[in-house]
């Protein structure tokens, strides 16, 4: 049995006190220990951002790449060694802005990875500029007159592309978020967990209080997460009431790996090559 402590890495945490990221870190640990996945079987991939530091604070395999590029190496690692439980984490800028293209096309491919987005509706690491999910009107040091562009709706985008696990959590409700992340990791296929994560330093609009006053749990209503059209409709809800929980879930869709016959018997890194097979080919040229 693994316990939460098994995932603890003894490094100093460089997030601001009170940051929503702490709730995400705890929730991931809860989920992993709940599923009893030992640290050596986990790979956490991140990009650059406050969120990109999360893997540094976990004891497991870590790959910290480039801003916006967490998803492609996560898929690359999963495909070549699908014994790894692969989780890609990133910020809203990371995953939906700089890496937006990767996000869209990864959903289409449906690799069996979990994507957790620390959605603080701001660029945290670069000290407070608007992100693709910042609310219209929010003023920052760059968006002096307020954000003018339509926020990116990642849940609606994912549902429209038939992502088979689409969810939203709140970093201020660790118990609930832990449960969502656990389901997401268990789910076969790309699972998206968009987490409302207050950035207490730079986002003065979307605060813990702001979210707390608005969030409600889908599972506490008569919501059915298997209806895609309803899920799409639900994903549009934002403002006075913000749903959290699993928006859409579908089993049985083949994953990216399922579609690759070469992976049927074992993972790529374990496959042995037989050089004598090449001789046959070479013979054809002589």
């Amino acid at each position: 049995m693994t316990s939460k402590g098994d995932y603890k890495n003894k490094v100093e945490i460089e997030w601001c006190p009170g940051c929503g990221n702490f709730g995400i870190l705890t929730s991931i640990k809860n989920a992993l220990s709940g599923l009893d996945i030992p640290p050596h079987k986990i790979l956490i991939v991140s990009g650059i951002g406050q969120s990109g530091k999360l893997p540094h604070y976990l004891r497991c395999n870590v790959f910290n790449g480039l801003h916006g590029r967490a998803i492609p190496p996560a898929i690359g690692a999963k495909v070549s060694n699908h014994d790894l439980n692969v989780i890609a984490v990133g910020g809203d800028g990371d995953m939906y802005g700089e890496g937006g293209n990767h996000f869209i096309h990864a959903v289409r491919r449906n690799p069996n990875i979990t994507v957790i987005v620390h959605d603080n509706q701001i660029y945290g690491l670069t000290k407070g500029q608007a992100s693709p999910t910042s609310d219209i009107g929010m003023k920052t040091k760059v968006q002096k007159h307020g954000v003018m562009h339509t926020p990116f709706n990642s849940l609606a985008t994912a549902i429209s592309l038939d992502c088979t696990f689409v969810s939203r959590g709140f970093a201020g409700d660790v118990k609930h978020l832990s449960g969502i992340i656990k389901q997401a990791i268990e789910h076969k296929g790309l699972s998206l967990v968009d987490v409302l994560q207050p950035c207490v330093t730079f986002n003065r609009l979307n605060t813990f209080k702001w979210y707390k006053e608005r969030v409600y749990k889908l599972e506490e209503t008569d919501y059915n997460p298997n209806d895609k059209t309803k899920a799409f409709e639900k994903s549009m809800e934002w403002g006075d009431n913000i749903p959290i929980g699993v928006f859409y879930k579908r089993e049985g869709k083949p994953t990216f790996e399922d579609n690759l016959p070469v992976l049927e018997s074992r993972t790529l890194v374990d496959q042995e090559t037989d050089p004598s097979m090449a001789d046959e080919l070479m013979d054809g040229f002589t």
Partner: protein
Amino acid sequence: MVELRNITKDMMTVVEGSYAVAHATKVCKPNVISAYPITPQTHIVEELSQFIADGEIENCDYINVESEFSALSTLVGSSATGARTYSSTTSQGLALMHEVLFNASGMRLPIVVTVVNRALSAPINIWNDQQDSVSERDSGWIQLYAEDVQEAADMVAQAYKVGEDPDVMLPVMVCMDGFLLSHVYEPVVLLEEDLIDDYLLPFDPKYKLDPKDPKTFGAFAPPASYTEFRYAQEQAMSAALDKIEKAADDFYDVFGRYYGGLIDEYKTDDADIIIMAKGSIIGTIRDVIDNLRENGVKVGLLKVRALRPFPKDAIKEVVKDSSVVITLDKNISPGVNEGALCTETKACMYNSDINVPVIGYMIGLGGRDIPEDTIENIVDEAKEVINSGISTESQFTDLREDLI
């Protein structure tokens, strides 16, 4: 002419380097600015956003984008319509612009980008070296390097002057060392708004996208004509050699400040040992030279302002009578074990009758401090070269043996 600054105290204001650059950009009246935040460039774009919000740059749009790739691509479109354009970035952001850099130079669009020099990942490092811009040497952009905040700011105006010249029409990178220049507070003269019109003409390119006179940008060039496009780019770079000198001279005439043209020199007249470098390290080298000169060491400085076009003739002229040249590079081409100045200085002397040894040092990588001692030790090694020839042609400086 050597560096001249006709500055009195009452002309100066203490500001952050990023502010001085943003202010100079404002004074140059760009029409479109597009950028994406990245440390240590962010302050420049935040200051520019503030200017625009305050209505201080007339007729200018700031376009918020989701990546550096989009930022430069946007400017390519704007510049093609005849707009004066500006961006600023660094490191990973510049690397992400790579594909678009060739687009801009190939279409001959004189976009100006301030590169706030920073190391490249992996490993992740946000501190200063010059690997980012040096890696883009072949992208067809003019590259200028500033020694201090005043020069980095004034260079923006010089960059537009050179890039937009009808004989040149090339994009320009103005490179300034990250943190060391972008984040320091220094007394500077903010680029004078009332004088700029005596220096910089409005941008009026011969070819632009205009419904009154339709044009194609970025057309196909098959093998039968592609080479000639590249040749024309090279011709423009050659033309830029004189234009960079002239832009510096004209700048002096209007503003009374001169930092060198393609290069600048300090105490090189009788120098046996010449130190070549670019960027903020120049300040440290000047101090080292002053100290060593007191002890009778004949050492001088060749400050490289333009890496592209590479000022071969100007360099040869300075070093021809010396006994040894030291190149200091905040970059490396792995596999050659040399930085850019080392490789290129050697190359420009080959096939000439100059036979001066060149020794290269990779220095200050990923923000490592460069103490004066380090440069003094290098000068000692150069003295050895004069006495007994080269033992190591190019090497890393201050390697920490405990980590290897």
